[in-house]
């Protein structure tokens, strides 16, 4: 992660700027050279998007599911029953 991005993330965490956190972690995932790192950053982007009720959550979740890092349906629509299918589960 670049120093600039790292600084921006620190600032966003310090101010609780969820909008920025979603974007910055997503960027960190995109920039990552390794899938594990991308999965880590995508997870953070997804969680902060969920917390914010941000529509980006759905695409982030789809990406995690594609990488086998999040369980299958349903979509992240909050207030839906939690995931029952176990696709992409690491055991």
């Amino acid at each position, binding site marked *: 992660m670049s120093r600039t991005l790292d600084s921006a993330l620190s600032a966003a965490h310090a101010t609780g700027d969820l909008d920025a956190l979603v974007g910055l972690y997503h960027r960190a995932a995109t920039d990552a050279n390794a899938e594990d*790192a991308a999965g880590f950053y995508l*997870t953070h982007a997804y*969680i902060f998007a*969920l917390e914010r009720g941000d529509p980006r959550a759905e695409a982030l979740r789809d990406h995690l599911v594609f990488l086998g890092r999040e369980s299958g349906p349903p979509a992240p629509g909050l*207030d839906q029953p939690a*995931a029952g299918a176990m696709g992409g589960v*690491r055991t």
Partner: protein
Amino acid sequence: MTVIDPILADVQKPTSQARGLPNAHYTDASAFAEERDALFGAGWAGLAVASEVPQIGDAIPITFLDMPLLLIRSRDNAVRVFQNICRHRGMILVEAPRRIEGAIRCPYHSWCYSTQGQLVATPHVGGPGYNSHADLDRTTLGLIEVRSHVWRDVVWINLSGHAPDFEAAMADVIARWGDFEQPVHHGGADSRFSLTVEGNWKLAIENYCESYHLPWVHPGLNSYSRLEDHYNIEMDGLTSGQGTKVYRQLRDEAGTTFPDFPGLDAKWDAGAEYLSIYPNVLMGVHRDHAFAIILRPDGPGRTHEHVHLYYAAEDTDDTLRRRNAAQWKEVFEEDIFVVEGMQLGRRAPGFDGGRFSPAMDGPTHCFHRWAAGRLAQARTVEA
């Protein structure tokens, strides 16, 4: 019902012979813990009012009987109560009132819950970047919901989960005030206030139940509401209180009053009633306004009283509404010294629970009788 404890048996005797609950029930932590289950947990207790969470996502953490609870208006516009803890490591989820825009994220490891309580995300639970695990079934790890019901804007909870449905449990009191089964409108920010009393919660109930003290503690009421204008209300096992036959509406200089609740029986033209609904909700109804007071015990020796005033219409005169709130606040503040004085009195070893006036203290004894019965029942079940 078999009553083993002779003291509880004494409390349940006829009013003329009974004595009140002993000191320990006002001062001891162990008695407080016993009451938490027997008096609060077994039935329906008041927690808050729905108007405190007017918008979807509004969430308020409430410590109730030492338990961390969360009052929330969920995405489906339902008022819900959860235990305010993450199912992972028991961390407190929401520390201060706020609006949940999306998910409730635990501040510890960021497990996320919907406003309806489902566990929707478990980041890194399967290792870094892996957010699921076969041994962790999210469908079984939602927030722990507390059974709740909203009546007259009060959010009632049943901690045990085993009480009869609210409307069955409270059928008699709902029927008594059937004329008032219609929308009530919270008066807003100027119609809510809180008082903290250095006294056991039961003393606030007991004082509210009876009219006996009115001429002495509220002499201002004497000018138009005499002791003989009041009557006792006793509904065994449910509620007790008092009524008046000379309620007089508040008016401003121009003669403006609050609008009446529509369709009331003529008995409410000058009638008003005040009920202590067991265990901890004090309510009052009048032709033109109502109130609810939620008592939240803070240990055996302190009680927080949360007062909310309601009207028949959404828009009421600001000045008149503020005057009404100030008037009631003055009355409730006048009661504080007696509650605190009786609390101090419970430190006297010679006090045996006291006696009741057969004529005037029926409603207070009705409450004691209910409490003693519930305690005896709980002890019988335990035994």
